[in-house]
């Protein structure tokens, strides 16, 4: 195994799948000559040519609509949104056409939309969002949020091979900051199977994406401070999500924190909390606590952005409150 950045793992996964399967092609704004705003597809056009690495006009519905059509014909398109925020421009297409197609007509749509998401670098209200919760409410879409380089690659390959529309949220703040071992083999990471990022016995934190590392720091802090043992469950995929793993962990810890970077009201954390409150009622010794961003747009200025994105200290406070319950 080699040590790779999260970004490199995504790029490698995509390139390898394009080599393996000539039905796979890439479409997006500036993905060709420029190699993508974050350089995930750097060098791809030289290798695969301009018709497998297409620079599209600035038109997200044209891009995702093209994925729907091309996948209907048996190709395996992978679209790139320049930032996840711009997927709002393809909301109607994704929720109206793509999500409902198989249920209505039985036609499979094997395509992936890659969405560089998340904040942490003063991207402001339009370059920092985590739109996964909005889509998670729409039946018919699969939603993937890898946290580690290994998963980033394995889940991307799985997404490309899945016969359904998959939204793949890659967190920009992990791109170059997070490195890890990535198998050289052709492997996939199955959907709907959470990963125990850290085992523990006192409190469970369920999270995904960049917040896995925030949870980890918080867990280390409380472990060192007073020996509280935190279990971190990285969901890896939001739709489907691994409720069994979550309930099993809560059965051991009796305490649950749900942590996400997206805003609180109506975020996917509500679904997890509601499910555990419903199906794990007898397991809980304390109320489920959600730690999430406040209900505002993502502010630009550093003090505000810091107040927006859940911080290690916020999670530590939640753990302490919970342990004291």
């Amino acid at each position, binding site marked *: 195994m080699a040590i790779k950045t999260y970004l490199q793992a995504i790029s490698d996964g995509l390139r390898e799948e394009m080599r393996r399967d000539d039905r796979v092609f890439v479409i997006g704004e500036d993905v060709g000559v420029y190699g993508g705003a974050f350089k995930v597809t750097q060098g791809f056009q030289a290798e695969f040519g301009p018709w497998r690495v297409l620079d599209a006009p600035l038109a997200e519905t044209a891009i995702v609509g093209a994925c729907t059509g091309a996948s209907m*014909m*048996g190709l395996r398109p992978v679209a790139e949104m320049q930032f996840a925020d711009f997927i709002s421009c393809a909301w109607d297409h994704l929720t109206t056409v793509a999500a409902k197609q198989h249920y209505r007509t039985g036609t499979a749509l094997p395509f992936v939309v890659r969405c560089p998401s998340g904040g942490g670098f003063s991207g402001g209200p339009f370059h920092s969002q985590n739109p996964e919760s909005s889509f998670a409410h729409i039946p018919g879409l699969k939603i993937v949020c890898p946290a580690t380089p290994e998963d980033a690659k394995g889940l991307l390959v799985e997404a490309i091979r899945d016969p359904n529309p998959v939204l793949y949220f890659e967190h920009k703040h992990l791109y170059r900051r997070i490195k890890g071992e990535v198998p050289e083999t052709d492997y996939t990471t199955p959907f709907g199977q959470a990963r125990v990022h850290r085992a523990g016995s006192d409190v469970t934190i369920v999270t995904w994406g960049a917040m896995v590392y925030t949870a980890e720091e918080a867990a280390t802090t409380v472990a060192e401070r007073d020996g509280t043992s935190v279990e971190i469950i990285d969901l890896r995929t939001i739709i489907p999500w691994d409720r069994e793993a979550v309930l099993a962990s809560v059965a051991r810890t009796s305490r649950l924190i749900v942590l996400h970077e997206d805003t609180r009201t109506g975020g996917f954390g509500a679904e997890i909390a509601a499910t555990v409150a419903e199906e794990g009622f007898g397991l809980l010794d304390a109320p489920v606590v959600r730690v999430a961003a406040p209900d505002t747009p993502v502010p630009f200025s550093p003090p505000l952005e810091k107040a927006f994105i859940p911080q290690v200290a916020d999670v530590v406070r939640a753990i302490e409150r919970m342990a004291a319950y």
Partner: protein
Amino acid sequence: MESARLAPASSTLDDARAAGLDRVDLQELYRLMLLTRGIEERGHILFRQGKVPGSFYTGRGNEAAAVGVGLAMERDDVGFPLQRDMGVHVARGTEPWRIFAQYMGRVDGFTAGRDGNVHMADTRLGLHAMVSHLPANVPVACGVALAFRIRGEARVAIGWSGDGATSRSDWHEALNFAGVRRLPVVFVVNNNQFAYSTPNDLEFATGHIADRAAGYGFGGVVVDGTDVVAVVRETRAALDRARGGGGPTLLELVTLRMEGHAVHDDAYYVPKGLHDAWSQRDPIERYRAFLREHLAQFDEETDMQVRGDVKAELADALRRAEASALPDADSILDGLFADPGELDTPHHR
């Protein structure tokens, strides 16, 4: 500024021949238009009998436009017809009994009761079901064309919209993308002069919708949508151009919507004079007169024969559809997602 080409009318057998239509084709066009209208008329009766849930839409007045394009398509072409385009389904060989089953929400409808009305298609015939949100499948048609282009196949995709739908976002993104990439796609606009109650002059401010094609870098053609031979001719020309690498064409087929937007709408807002004028141009009557005048073999008897056959076919189709079951409530969760095994099926060609 007007930039679209106005297609000439067809009036002689030579015109038909120029459109690549032989005698058999010419008679078949007639049968297909009759069948199209017959399906919708019987569907309407079913609706009044309370057998069709929801609402009911027809394409009366659009039979020539729909059948003409449907017939012009090659076997491996792929299309996304809309609410006035029953004739496309019929021309491609869709079985009428399954259309009735679709109307009634039965398991043998193309969506097995998941969707209604003409939100249907027999994917094996290279057609895909419409969605309500107009014109959401036009970008999809471009994606289909892109697949053909990537694989180097001599196939063409066809994306439909109404006059009203051309005001929407998706239409623009699709036409622009297709123009830039010179994709093998033909854009058909059924301009039936109204979008629900909204007349053309409140929808767009140019002379013809087809004038917009120039701004996307390809040609626009305005065709009389009640002239089936002209529709076939212009569609074939556009398909040939696309197939040969010449890029897209925008075909504007002008008709009048001869009934309300849907069954509940009496279309009082359509000026009576306009309606009367277009009644004189009923595509089926007009075509029958053409055949009677020009096609020796097509006499009163043949006409009666075709009509009788269509009637019998429809009666049979209705019987078969009514025997189809309603879906089982327990199946509600089935098929939200596709299984891996479903890929590489015929419609994924």
